[in-house]
């Protein structure tokens, strides 16, 4: 009787926070730390739903270590300091064993000290600027070498691009990524005057000047492309302006790192056909496991029109890695899981296996997709094998010599191979 009751209680109260108190000892708790209000709700709400779906599916399979999983959802409201408070609440008050969450780099940076201090686990699902490796954090999104560098290679080799506009929103991810790209392009022999770097504020909505700058930069007789690290909301007016100004993908292609299926759902994609995005997953991936995932997602969310995207796949991979590591370790204890998870390999949605590396980044394929009229992407190029996420870029002076390896005996996130010491440059 007792177990039936527990199951019912868990099933019924899955998304609620603390009401399942009676069943508390019987469940393993998983924290979901995504903004459900404020500016980032637009991207993060979907990830919260994806996590609830993954946990529900795992429970259908019999849970973990013989126990049911219970999601604890909190809302950090797109407020960076609140992320740290909510993370602390999840770990200390709700006693969760792992947390899946954060989107922007600044929110990740704000929760890092909390996870370190309380020795818990964070799975971070979004592509980011690299230059970081922390013992308690697992980076399931792409590092720059898993997204930005292959995208630039593609444009250079397949499209013959010689002139580059690096356009981004003014914050840490675009600035670091563009720094890496600039160093990379120069190493490839691109001249200073063939690179134009441009930053805009968050939520920039008047793109007339920048689009016309791109147009005139592109009329210097060389093939030009735009590498866009423009974030979230600002993309819609940017692409609208591009479309209206008649900049076609055949002439000046734009490759974006923050535009996925979800972002395209907010605009008419017809004028954007052919513009590119680099990700590790597209909803259009033609594999059985992806078809299953999409079907489960539609059933869970109750809407056939909802799309899937790359950070959702990252959560899918991260969650399965955590499940496997817990089973391997036989406990949810953070230290045991950190030791057990390195080397764990789980299927990704593009038909391969992703492995957790010692630097707490994972292996992924890199796909370049072209936007289609229906708001989906069509893969036009992909890396031949999996790419290992590189925490420390090989193209920046300060981080060239650093490596991260969290296995004993090294156990260091920023080991300097030049000086032989742990502790950065």
């Amino acid at each position, binding site marked *: 009787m007792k177990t039936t009751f527990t199951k019912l209680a868990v099933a019924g109260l899955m998304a609620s926070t603390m009401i399942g108190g009676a069943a508390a000892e019987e469940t393993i708790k998983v924290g979901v730390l995504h903004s459900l209000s404020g500016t980032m709700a637009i991207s993060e709400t979907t990830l919260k739903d994806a996590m609830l779906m993954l946990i529900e599916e795992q429970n259908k399979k019999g849970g973990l270590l013989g126990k049911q999983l219970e999601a604890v959802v909190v809302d950090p409201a797109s407020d960076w300091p609140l992320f740290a408070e909510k993370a602390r609440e999840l770990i200390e008050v709700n006693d969760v064993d792992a947390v899946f969450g954060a989107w922007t780099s600044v929110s990740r940076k704000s929760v890092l000290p909390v996870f370190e201090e309380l020795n818990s686990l964070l799975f971070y699902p979004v592509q980011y600027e690299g230059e970081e490796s922390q013992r308690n954090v697992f980076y399931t999104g792409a590092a720059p070498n898993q997204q930005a560098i292959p995208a630039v290679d593609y444009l250079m080799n*397949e499209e013959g691009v010689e002139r580059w506009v690096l356009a981004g929103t*003014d914050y840490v991810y675009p600035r670091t990524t563009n720094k890496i790209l600039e160093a990379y392009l120069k190493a490839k022999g691109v001249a200073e005057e063939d690179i134009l770097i441009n930053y805009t504020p968050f*939520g920039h909505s008047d793109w007339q*000047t920048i689009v016309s700058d791109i147009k005139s930069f592109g009329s210097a007789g060389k093939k030009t492309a735009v590498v866009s690290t423009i974030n979230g909301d600002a993309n819609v007016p940017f692409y609208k302006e591009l479309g*209206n100004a008649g900049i076609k993908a055949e002439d000046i292609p734009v490759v974006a790192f923050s535009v996925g299926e979800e972002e395209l759902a*907010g605009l008419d994609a017809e004028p954007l056909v052919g513009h590119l995005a680099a990700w590790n997953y597209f909803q259009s991936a033609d594999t059985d496991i992806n078809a299953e995932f999409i079907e489960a997602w539609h059933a869970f969310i109750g809407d056939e029109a909802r799309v899937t995207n790359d950070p959702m796949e990252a959560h899918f991979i991260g969650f399965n890695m955590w499940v496997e590591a817990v089973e391997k370790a036989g406990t949810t204890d953070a230290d045991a899981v950190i030791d057990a998870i390195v080397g764990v390999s789980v299927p990704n949605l593009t038909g391969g296996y992703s492995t957790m590396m010692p630097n707490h980044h994972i292996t992924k394929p890199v796909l370049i997709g*072209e936007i289609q009229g229906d708001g989906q992407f069509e893969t036009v190029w992909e890396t031949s094998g999996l790419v290992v996420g590189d925490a420390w870029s090989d193209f920046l002076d300060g981080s060239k010599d650093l490596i991260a390896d969290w296995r004993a005996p090294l156990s260091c996130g920023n080991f300097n191979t030049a000086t032989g010491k742990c502790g950065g440059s």
Partner: protein
Amino acid sequence: MSLVRTFILLFGLIAGFSVNIAIAQTDPESLRPLVNELAKGKYAETEKQIGALVATGDPAVAPALEALGAGVLFYRKSDGSVFITEKAGKTYKLTDPLTLEAKGEAGKREVKKIKVNNKLRRVIRAALGSLTLMAPDPEVRKTAAEAVFKARDPDSIEALDIALASETDESVQLIMEQARAAAVLNSDMDEAQKINAIETLSEMGNRDALSLLINVQSSSEGVVRDAATIAVEKIEKSIAAWDSAQNIWYGLSLGSVLLLAAIGLAITFGVMGVINMAHGEMVMIGAYTTFVVQELIRTSAPGLFEYSLFIALPLAFLASGLVGIAIERGVIRWLYGRPLETLLATWGISLILQQAVRSIFGPTNREVGNPDWMSGAFELGQMTITYNRMWIIVFAMLVFAGLMLVLKKTSFGLNTRAVTQNRRMAASMGIRTPWVDALTFGLGSGIAGIAGVALSQIDNVSPNLGQGYIIDSFMVVVFGGVGNLWGTLVGAMTLGVVNKFLEPYAGAVLGKIFVLVFIILFIQKRPRGLFALKGRAVEA
């Protein structure tokens, strides 16, 4: 999709036409193996196959190529035959790519799309250009000539010469000559020819020509190089002059957006003195009204889509206006004379409205489509003017004029002005001041709502829409002078133009900071803004 179909039919006509005027015409069936070949292999092979199709020189292959470029050319998995498709619900309607006869339907899994990428689209564009230079419709010939211009293929010179000899339309002729010049510069023809070509391009004078000439400049020697250098300098000079005009245009456009966002606030804050932090959310409600109207039109009357904005305008005005009146009656009227409480209360309301919209419509962006007359751009000299920006400027001016008219010429406007100038005397004269307050606030909110309809055309429709405009709106109203609509107009335009002139030099981020600093300094000097109200009303 229907556009593509029209194109295909068009090309079908062309194909049919050329049968009659009979150039080297082959039996369509002999082309079929070549067309079916497209279904095989990767991009590199597809490129070769396109080349083979073009080499036949037969315009009958144009529809297949056009469909390939548009991504509607599929092949049947069972027999590998190629069809032009049109999506019809869950199935695809098949059309024969050569005879253009309907060939029934096929399920999603029976057919597969032939993949194209940007490179292939470029190849197809160029190929279609050379195939359709002799088309009967001058518009098609024009597009063809433009495509040939971009391709700059020396092999097309011959085709261009033939086309030019029979061309009657002057504008098409001009583009063909330019296309020929572009191809000549890419060929190994003699210097005299090339210098002629440079002159043609120099007269063309736009960025495309500049791009080409810079290329010539760096890749040639002697006289040709000198001629190119002179031409480049000449074009750059003229473009620089046009750039200032373009900047002013951008400034006016940004100014009109600011004006739209601020003009409702100019009434609620400027005239009534209510610090309404929920003003941005009124704009958002207007934008969501547009979304709802378009959704309804899409599902029930797709033919009305071109008019969706006109239908949305009054509804957005009503929706935002009613919410505004409800806020005034429910909250603000208890707080008159207490600006700090008003500020906090309306800030709270703005959060409630945002989260309400997030719960109803979801947190993601909603797609508000641009009607055809709001899309695209036209060239004015060397300036590119996009239709949506142009109409928004016109619309902002109309709203401004309309509002002026209401305030100056109607009895409601008279009452409003009377109440704001001297509330007690107005009340003594029998004006029901609470109702005037509510309606004035409703008017300000309603105007914000119709601004939302316009902004939905250029910005995201998301719950955060309003937040992006609230600071700018206050800035405009304070800068222009509280209580003066003309001040709002001049303030918005000034800030727009200043911003756009700073942006190319300082960048968007710094530019915005400079504008803020400028306003702070300006307010220090003239605390009442550009157009200060004078007289006793100010002191009350």
